[in-house]
């Protein structure tokens, strides 16, 4: 039997979850580049293989990407936050109110939205760490609470629009080549990456995910660490709310509906274990990209366009991809177990 040897350092990198996901992403991209790029009646190249489309993919990924980044440390601690999408909606509404109704300037209103995000995340943190309630239940509650508040404040009818061009620049224009919000997304990715992989905080998240009791006995401030990850998620949700509002040029109570599930999907697809302890920010970024490319690529395929079913199909395929990734990640273990039992059934012959 071949064992792990010196010639396969790069092979083990390829066979890591991230490596396989990267290959899937490349395959997706090449597939859509080939089949999703067309020439229209005016001999202009359109579809997936255009720079504009690539930037659109990046643009559309930023909000869900930010939420996925916020969820990565949380899921590493074996927690969950279902309220991020609702908090996005609440922050968007309050940002609109502070600017439009209270007459504050955009930067002040944005700061206000970030404070609201921190308060929302803080509420989750408080309930989870002080009262030791399960994160699933707490955030299921705040999921309804935040969305309900947003709807109550606006009575489901008010929409804030007519934001100044300087604010819309954030979501609709480019800055140094990339969509403006992509810079924020990349910066947050770098920060979360550093936090998770380059600091003792990151190690403590994993330790808590593996065993909160063990972490406590090891002297880790489990409560404070947990509070931190939920607080970060709140602030990042507010950031995503500002980007969302700027991209669409409107703030409405339904902003970000269902985003929490897309974000969790991306994190899990990226190889972070829902049971905590294992995972990486790189994986999350790849997960976000794999879903975004799939969704946008499908919409460019002529056959899908004719069926007018891009949304449904991308939902189906994202689900399939996730299940496949999960199956793929447990398959080697089953395979080696099977092999072990298969081999041990026969007498070992020396060679």
């Amino acid at each position, binding site marked *: 039997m071949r064992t792990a040897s010196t010639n396969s350092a790069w092979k083990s990198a*390829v*066979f890591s979850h991230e490596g*396989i996901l990267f*290959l*899937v992403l*490349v*395959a997706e991209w*090449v*597939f859509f*580049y*080939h*089949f999703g*790029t*067309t*020439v*229209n*009646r*005016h001999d*202009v*190249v*359109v*579809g997936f*293989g*255009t720079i*504009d*489309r690539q930037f*659109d993919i990046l643009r*559309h990924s930023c909000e869900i990407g930010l939420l996925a980044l916020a969820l990565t440390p949380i899921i590493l601690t074996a927690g969950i936050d279902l309220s991020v999408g609702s908090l996005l909606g609440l922050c968007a509404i309050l940002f609109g109110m502070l600017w439009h109704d209270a007459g504050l300037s955009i930067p002040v209103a944005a700061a206000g939205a970030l404070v609201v995000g921190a308060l929302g995340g803080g509420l989750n943190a408080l309930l989870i760490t002080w009262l030791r309630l399960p994160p699933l239940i707490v955030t299921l509650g705040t999921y309804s609470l935040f969305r309900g508040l947003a709807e109550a404040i606006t009575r489901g009818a008010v*929409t804030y*629009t*007519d934001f100044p061009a300087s604010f*819309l620049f954030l979501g*609709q224009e480019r800055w140094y080549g990339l969509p403006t919000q992509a810079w924020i997304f990349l910066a947050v990715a770098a920060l979360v990456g550093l936090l998770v992989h380059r600091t003792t905080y990151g190690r403590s998240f994993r330790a808590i995910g593996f065993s909160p009791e063990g972490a406590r006995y090891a002297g880790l401030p489990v409560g404070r660490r947990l509070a931190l990850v939920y607080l970060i998620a709140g602030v990042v949700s507010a950031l995503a709310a500002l980007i*969302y509002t700027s*991209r*669409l*040029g*409107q703030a*409405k109570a*339904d*902003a970000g*509906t269902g985003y929490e599930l897309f974000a969790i999907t991306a994190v899990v697809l990226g190889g972070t274990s829902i049971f905590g302890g294992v995972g990486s920010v790189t994986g999350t970024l790849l997960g976000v990209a794999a879903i975004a490319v799939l969704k*946008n690529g499908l*919409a*460019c395929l*002529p056959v899908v*366009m*004719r069926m*007018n079913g*891009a*949304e*449904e199909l991308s939902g189906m395929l994202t689900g399939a991809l996730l299940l496949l990734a999960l199956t*793929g990640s447990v398959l080697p273990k089953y395979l080696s177990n099977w092999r072990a039992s298969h081999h041990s059934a026969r007498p070992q012959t020396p060679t």
Partner: protein
Amino acid sequence: MKYLPFRLLLALSLAFAALAPAVHAADQKLVVAMLPKAKGNAYFISCKAGAEKAAKELGVTLLFDGPTDSNAAKQNEIIENWITLGVDVIVAACENKEGISTALRKAQKQGIKVVTYDADALPDSRTFFVNQATPEGIGYSLMDEAARLTNSEGEFAIITASLTASNQREWMKYIQARLTEKYPKMKLVLTRPCDDLKDKAQSEATAMMSANPNLKLIMAICSPGVPGAAEAVKQAGKTGKVKVIGLGLPNENKRYVHEGVTDSVILWNTMDLGYLSTYAGVAVAKNELKPGAKSFKAGTLGTFEIQGDNILLGKPFIFNQGNIDQFDF
């Protein structure tokens, strides 16, 4: 065995990479992209049926896509997708006026023409709005239909959604105007709100009938009001004696129409709306229909009036026993 997935992926990638950037020549036909508020909504499905008929007659490709629920953010994403696909014209029913206008303006910047229907965007983000019904058209049609059913004489009452809603007040204004102008022998005895609730409409209608024994007709100008009033009339055993008409959707009134309780339901013909919108979109894309035009001819439906930048679908459509089963929304 272990390396199979990797090799497969590599082989696949290489195969596609070798072919790329192969570019397929797409449809040489003009592409019309139609956006409903929600693509599963029966109202828009019947718009689509009309649009498909028009697309076939015009020899253009019709894309019909929208959110599965009414979601402004998804509408924008679909439009951005159409922009990179380089469609020729976008025909949109807008969930949120301001939100969608950003995306539509971006489309216009890329040379894509925009026409709106059913629910308008901001005027600077589209060339024309296909207006399915003016308040004047609705008010006059309701009053004319009421007069026809009562031989232009006797008492009638109105159920509104609320006394303050702007569209309801607008319709009331034209109903009143038509009444004073053309039907002197008719008398509006009572106007009551039902808060857009069927139950409330039913109790209001019951109260109306007992307070006004000579009442000949109830007109409901909000959609829950029509079946509500019909149920009241039916339960009072006054079917045929007190007529019911109103503004509403065919499906929720079919039963009462077939039972003879409700005589007519007034709305617009959604298939015609889809048909006209598609014709208008194609004409704008081909530069045959330009701002400032006074009228527009749309295939077999004939010529439509244009007021400013609104193409008027014209008179509302009357659903009755003879035709209501052809519509499913």
